[in-house]
């Protein structure tokens, strides 16, 4: 059936011809415009729709190209993909957004690798030497696509809690990774030299080695660094898509892939900078777990522990309260309960603001998304630089499931792994309430002196439960 359908002549555009090129230029111009609009709060949603329009034009143009066939399979693939994409996007919880992006990035990488394989088989079937300007991009996109697919899947599994988020280090890991990489490069070089009749077995071996490498590179990285990793893999997939464009001589793929690759690289660096880390450090240091046991302060230190009722009293009689949300808020789905606390406080005339650390949660902007979902007014969300000067005048700072982003060691202890990372200076506030399930360290794996300060009270509970109780208690005061 597929072959019968493939005879249907939809082909009206010559690949590389003026018509197709003109339409592709329109498409990628819309991508550039869409991304540009995506950098402004007021135009971001419109920007996304502009990019959608660009994609629609790019897909339609390609379907009209001469040489497009096997319509049954095309329609089947499009239908399956669209159904999965729609259902997954509608059902996903806002808290699960980071891993959803990881998964989408992964399938993109998977598509790149599969296309490379198919292109190689096509090249072999022609019975002539595959030109190097086709073969090299094919090999490149195969490797990067495979690394991106598996790396993204591991990132997804970690964020979804399917595998432990703590760094999983294997002894001699760097050596194994280096050997794998050398092996992959050697395989690709041998394929390129033997471009008259490249061995598919070697190609598949390299594909699998790249898959193993993708796993091994991401497994040792701690959960806190995942946003940077996902962003980096996003840029990788973009570059790999551009390479596919070189192999297929498709200008839309080259421009769109490169655009994602370069903008994704910038975005990755911005995220890493916000954490005062370099990308290389995140990828190779395995920081996030190693110093957890060894570097932590083992001695018992006294902490002040309070219950929901005491916390409610402290909050209700304050003039100004700043809420500092972290990943614990996302895990506990506490955003609505926290909003209730804020509503109760505002009813009593207490000024409430939310201090958003750039890397709180699992992705920049993660907290904004969650709090927006709970109808927190946009103007109450304050950025770190904006709210820190107000901290000394704040009566109570409430830390909800955040840890490293409020750790004073970042500014006080030059030897700390997070030294120099900008933090929300809750230690400057008159009183601090920390809602947290235990004293366990955050993802950076280091102890937090804040918990032992005399003006800090610890409320050991699940964030949602604690916030619900506090809201009820304030209502009764």
């Amino acid at each position, binding site marked *: 059936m597929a072959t019968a359908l*493939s005879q249907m002549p939809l082909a009206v555009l010559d690949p590389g011809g003026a018509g197709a090129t003109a339409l592709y230029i329109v498409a*990628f111009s819309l*991508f*550039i415009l*869409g*991304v540009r*609009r995506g950098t*402004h*709060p007021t135009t*971001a*949603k419109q920007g*996304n729709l502009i*990019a959608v329009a660009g*994609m629609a034009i*790019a897909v339609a143009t*390609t*379907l009209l190209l001469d*040489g*497009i066939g*096997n319509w049954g*399979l*095309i329609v089947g*693939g499009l239908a*399956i*993909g669209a159904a999965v*994409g*729609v259902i997954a*996007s509608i059902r996903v919880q*806002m808290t699960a957004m980071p891993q959803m*992006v990881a*998964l*989408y990035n992964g399938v*993109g990488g*998977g*598509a790149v690798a*599969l*296309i490379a394989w*198919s*292109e190689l*088989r*096509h090249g072999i*079937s022609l019975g002539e030497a595959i030109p190097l300007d086709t073969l090299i991009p094919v090999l490149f996109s195969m490797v990067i696509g495979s690394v991106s697919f598996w790396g993204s899947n591991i990132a997804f599994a970690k964020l979804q809690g399917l595998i432990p988020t703590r760094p999983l280090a294997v002894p001699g890991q760097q050596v194994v990774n280096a050997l794998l990489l050398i092996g992959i490069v050697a395989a690709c070089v041998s394929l390129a030299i033997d471009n008259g009749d490249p061995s598919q077995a070697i190609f598949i071996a390299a594909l699998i080695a790249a898959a193993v490498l993708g796993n091994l590179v991401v497994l040792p990285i701690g959960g806190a660094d995942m946003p940077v990793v*996902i*962003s980096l893999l996003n840029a990788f*997939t973009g570059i790999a*898509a*551009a390479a596919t464009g070189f192999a297929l001589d*498709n*200008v839309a*793929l*080259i421009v769109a892939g*490169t*655009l*994602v690759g370069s*903008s*994704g690289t910038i975005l990755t660096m911005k995220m890493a900078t*916000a954490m005062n880390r370099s990308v290389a450090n995140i990828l190779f240091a395995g920081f996030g777990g190693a110093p957890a046991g060894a570097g932590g302060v083992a001695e018992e230190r006294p902490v002040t522990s309070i219950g929901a009722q005491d916390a409610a009293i402290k909050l209700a009689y304050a003039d100004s309260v700043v809420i500092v949300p972290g990943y614990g808020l996302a895990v506990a789905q506490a955003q609505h309960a926290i909003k209730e606390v804020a509503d109760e406080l505002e009813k009593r005339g207490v000024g409430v603001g939310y201090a958003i650390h750039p890397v709180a949660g699992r992705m920049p*902007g993660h907290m904004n*998304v969650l709090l927006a979902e709970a109808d927190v007014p*946009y103007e109450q969300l304050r950025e770190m630089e904006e709210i820190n000067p107000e901290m000394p005048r704040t009566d109570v700072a409430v830390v909800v499931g955040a840890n490293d982003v409020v750790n004073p060691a970042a500014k006080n202890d030059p030897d700390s792994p997070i030294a120099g990372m900008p933090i929300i200076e809750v230690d400057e506030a008159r009183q601090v309430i920390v809602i947290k399930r235990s004293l366990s360290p955050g993802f950076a794996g280091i102890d937090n002196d804040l918990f032992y300060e005399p003006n800090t009270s610890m409320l050991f509970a699940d964030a949602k439960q604690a916030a619900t109780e506090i809201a009820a208690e304030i209502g009764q005061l």
Partner: protein
Amino acid sequence: MTEITIFVLAAFVGFEVISKVPTTLHTPLMSQTNAIHGIVMLGGLIVIGHAGDPLEYVIGTIAIAFGTINIVGGFMVTDRILGMFTRKAKPSAPSASRPGADGSDKG
């Protein structure tokens, strides 16, 4: 050579276009660019046209399905994330009329 030129210019456009962006928009922007690289699905459309055996049919179909998930899912999730911001966009949005003007001279 033309393709290399296009590649280099596109890279600079990518660097420039994203040079200034508030942290709030990092996640939706990552999600949007993520959707855009789903364009690799076009490669699936092209290679399945010259697929010659069952294995290539399977590879091509999976590639198209994967790419489509990337595109559809990516754009929809981005829209959902941004929907949460715009629903309660600042009531006083004096800058609402400006982006068009400053976007045109950079485009």
